[in-house]
């Protein structure tokens, strides 16, 4: 059992990371007894699992995720939603209407129109079917105000922080409401544009420095300094 990387080393696709009875975690693959990286990122070992925190990746849908998407097409009985993923998502009219869809009575564009942003939950997705969304839960539905920030989806866990510590701190310090889509789209809505600007700055800083430690303290410090100006 050997590993071929230093702690938190930057690795590139194809780099041999370990040999032996390790488990291949995120962004790695196993061939015989060898584990290789599949993406550029920071290599890690936890127990016997080798994984890479990708510095660049895209969102892949997962059932249960909350996402923020944009309506790109209104069909006869469905909306097509861009969720920043390799696949477009579907939102069915019946999901919104709470009753069977009636094409004579129900005009979909009146509910959600092209370019509207929605907060939705992913309820179904597999290799053969496009992702399906629902908005039938509290706090889901059309976004009417606020500001949108897009980040690399792999940075979302860092923005949330351990047990939500990072995001709670930002909410408290900036007095903004912040909704995080797992697909890397974040909605910020504050009382003043200045509050929103602070929250965006904080998120950008986390995105840039996601792989460093002591980040929560540095972000708090930055927000407080900015507020004094």
């Amino acid at each position, binding site marked *: 059992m050997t590993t071929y990387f230093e702690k938190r080393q*930057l690795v*590139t696709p*194809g780099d041999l990371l370990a040999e032996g009875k390790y488990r291949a975690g995120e962004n790695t693959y196993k061939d015989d007894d060898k584990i290789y990286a*599949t993406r*550029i990122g920071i290599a890690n070992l936890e127990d016997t699992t080798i994984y890479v925190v990708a510095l*660049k990746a895209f969102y892949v849908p997962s059932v249960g995720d909350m996402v923020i998407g944009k309506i790109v097409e209104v069909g006869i009985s469905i909306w097509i939603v861009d969720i920043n993923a*390799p696949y477009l998502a579907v939102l069915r009219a019946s999901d919104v209407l709470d009753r069977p869809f009636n094409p004579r009575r129900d005009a979909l564009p009146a509910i959600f129109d092209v370019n509207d942003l929605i907060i939705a939950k992913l309820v179904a997705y597999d290799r*053969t079917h496009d992702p399906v969304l629902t908005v039938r839960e509290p706090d889901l539905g059309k976004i009417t105000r606020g500001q949108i920030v897009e980040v690399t989806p792999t940075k979302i866990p860092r923005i949330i922080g351990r047990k939500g510590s990072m995001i709670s701190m930002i909410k408290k310090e900036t007095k903004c409401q912040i909704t995080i889509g797992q697909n890397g789209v974040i909605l910020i809505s504050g009382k003043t544009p200045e509050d929103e600007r602070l929250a965006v700055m904080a998120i950008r800083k986390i995105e*840039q*420095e996601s792989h460093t430690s002591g980040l929560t303290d540095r972000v708090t410090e930055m927000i407080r300094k900015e507020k004094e100006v």
Partner: protein
Amino acid sequence: MRKTHEKLINENSTRLDGRKSNQLRPIKIEVGTLSNADGSAYIEQGKNKILAAVYGPKELHPKHRALPDRALLICRYHMAPFSVQERKSPAPSRREIEISKVIREALEPSVFVEYYPRTSIDIFIEVLQADGGTRCSGITVASLALADAGIPMHDLVSACAAGKVDGQLVLDLNDIEDKEGEADLPLALMPNLNAITLIQMDGDLSINEFEQTLNLAKEGCKQIHALQKDALKAKYAAVKEVVEEK
């Protein structure tokens, strides 16, 4: 072929551009040069100047082209009209269509296409200036654009040609060596896996010369692989260093 030069290698074993037989041309690589693309890279290899961009994985149009069990790789190798001495028509030539196919087949083994069924991954290679060996430089740079797009890969793909010029085996042929030499063998390799993903040749090689040329090209690929990794790390390490200084 009418020869423009009597000798391509002089009595001191030096090539017309001053290189030794086993020497690569100067190579400069930059990753992430285009903001619109999901991934991009730029290479200068001698006078070759080539850009690559990757879009995807994304919804495929028209949908009937989609593959149920994997992503469809789409590759376009294209030369700008001003990239060569005599203006090239911008319409894709038969040569460009064949090269697009072999490049696609050289890159596909490196990509986990099975992860993203029904999608497409589009690879665009624009040759801005050509001086021989553009399919190899194109593969080298496109592989980096794929990595920069965050697409999971088995390995990078590194490509380099070797061949025979004035009876000698040489690495990384430029245009005049390719045209007036005796053989040109482009090779693409996944270096960590020692897997050959492209091999072509035209010219005249005995089985022995073939084996030696193959090994020479392989060494070239390995040198290029090191440069690819440096370029990729340079983009992503830049952020890290700025942060750690603070």
